[in-house]
């Protein structure tokens, strides 16, 4: 099966929904070929605005458009969207709770060769602490399409985290119906829970198969919605399995694993192990080599699953 990057699915979804929602406008900062907003631009040139290499202006211009009833999708790399333009996102989008959608591509180390300056590993943390910001992190083309739909239907700011790397399809088109604040149960199990987001869902699926071959029953969940987070589902996994592994292509500080741990510690504490980047910057290399270097792999999820099972009471 052909692999499709979530950024590609994002560009296609914008062009598709742009047909239905005439208020959608798309802004980019000289990266439309990479963020794939180019697909929308070709179809709706009058509703596309290139702001140039100026991410701060990008975000605040989108805010201005939103005050006039437009549904702006502001797109650039995650490192610039959440990093360089943080104050604009906080003060001009988050604080006035404007209806701006941030399409942040090239998140994580899997962009590969460009290296640490472009490998965003802090954006989940930065975005989820902004009051009222919805944070989405789809795993494949179909869930990306669903995340774009959710973003349009939700009134308020939304951050969508997207990847550069082509990935297998997990879901069939038309068969997935995402809800805001809900995770997706891929399979139920009783020995260990694996909660993954974004690219790491693919590794988690492989890890679950490996564990099952050893007779370990895995409760496996894809979490495309990091904020609001699916509290009920997290607690169900905790109560069913008694231990959890989280997996994300992000710093383990403040990210998805932290969000899961915040829910558990206040409601139903169980042992947790986190797979992610351990408070480091990234580095250059082929995507698969970089992912291996930082142990963002199915093997590491298996190791952590075995470790966390030993901590069960």
């Amino acid at each position: 099966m052909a692999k499709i990057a979530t950024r590609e699915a994002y560009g296609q979804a914008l062009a598709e929904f742009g047909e239905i929602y005439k208020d959608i406008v798309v802004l980019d900062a000289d990266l439309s070929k990479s963020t794939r907003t180019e697909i929308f631009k070709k179809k709706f040139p009058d509703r596309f605005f290139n702001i140039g290499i100026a991410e701060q202006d990008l975000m605040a211009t989108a805010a201005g458009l939103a005050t006039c009833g437009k549904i702006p999708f502001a797109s650039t790399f995650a490192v610039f969207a959440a990093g360089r333009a943080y104050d604009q996102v906080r003060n001009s989008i988050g604080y006035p709770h404007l209806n701006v959608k941030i399409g942040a591509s090239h998140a994580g180390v899997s962009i590969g060769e460009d290296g640490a300056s472009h490998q965003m590993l802090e954006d989940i943390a930065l975005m989820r602490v902004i009051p009222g910001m919805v944070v989405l992190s789809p795993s494949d083309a179909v869930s990306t399409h669903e995340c774009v739909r959710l973003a349009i239907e939700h009134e308020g700011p939304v951050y969508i985290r997207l990847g550069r790397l082509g990935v297998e399809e997990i879901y069939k088109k038309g068969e997935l119906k995402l809800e805001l604040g809900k995770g997706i149960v891929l399979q139920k199990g009783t020995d260990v829970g694996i909660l993954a987001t974004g690219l790491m869902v693919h590794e988690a699926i492989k890890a679950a198969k490996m564990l099952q071959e050893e007779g370990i029953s895995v409760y496996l969940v894809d979490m495309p919605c990091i904020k609001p987070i699916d509290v009920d589902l997290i607690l169900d996994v905790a109560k069913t399995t008694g231990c959890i592994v989280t997996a994300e292509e992000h710093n383990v500080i403040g990210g998805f694993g932290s969000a899961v741990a915040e829910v558990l510690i206040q409601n139903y504490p169980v042992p947790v192990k986190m797979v992610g980047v351990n408070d480091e910057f990234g580095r250059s290399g082929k995507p698969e080599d970089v992912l291996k270097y930082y142990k963002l792999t199915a093997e590491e999820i298996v190791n952590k699953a075995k470790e966390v099972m030993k901590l069960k009471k």
Partner: protein
Amino acid sequence: MDKAKEKELKKIATEIRKSIIIQTAEAGSGHPGGSLSGVEILTYLYFVEMKIDPKNPKDPDRDRFVLSKGHASPLLYAVLAEKGFISKEELKGFRQIYSNLQGHPDMKKVPGVEMSTGSLGQGLSVANGMALAAKLDKKDYRVYVLLGDGEIQEGQIWEAAMTAAHYKLDNLTAFLDHNGLQIDGKITEVMSPEPVDEKFKAFGWHVIKIDGHDFNQIEGAVNEAKTVKGKPTIIIAETVKGKGVSFMENEVGWHGTAPNKEQAQKALEELQKQYEALEVQG
């Protein structure tokens, strides 16, 4: 502008100055200096120029104003109260815990506030977004924005200046409140943005220089801006920080310091005399 109209506006401006003094004095904090310098600009926009209706503050066809220098909030609140968007009673709560009148304007809390501002350098981009939306929707409303002359040290202003010219936003008029002072001193000593007129010209803007306290010059510039096609206009308004209160004028210390009771009393007496002088003029 006829004399009667000008006198009327001068009276409103004096009332707004009093309100700025009262708000900051009651709050014991706030920014009187840069609020007083922009009084005539906002008075003209809100009481002569802009199509706005306090009874219908969200009218999609209304003109928009963005206070990019959000710390001049007492000025905006005074104008909105005078215009009837909020009650004058509310002004007493400026910067207090129970009030909607935040230190810097919050569009979600105050009718008539078009954008939440405070972090400098962002309002011009927002105004561009509003002007782009007008073009897309083929609406003829205009967008106004007030920038501080210290504020334009922010790099984002120049990103936005490029965007406005690139997209030919002739429905956008910016005012530069050129009072020459910022918190740490003279703008030319802290980090000179001069020559501001040449810079904006080079960025593709139509530039008009005026005395920012002269209603006739403000009117002339605003009307000229409306005739300019294919480019945005910036009106560089030469102003006096602390204008109207003798001991605050051109004193950098009054950027972000509220008057105490006695100082407020003195300021209000001066402003009352100015008001009475206008009455006597007949």
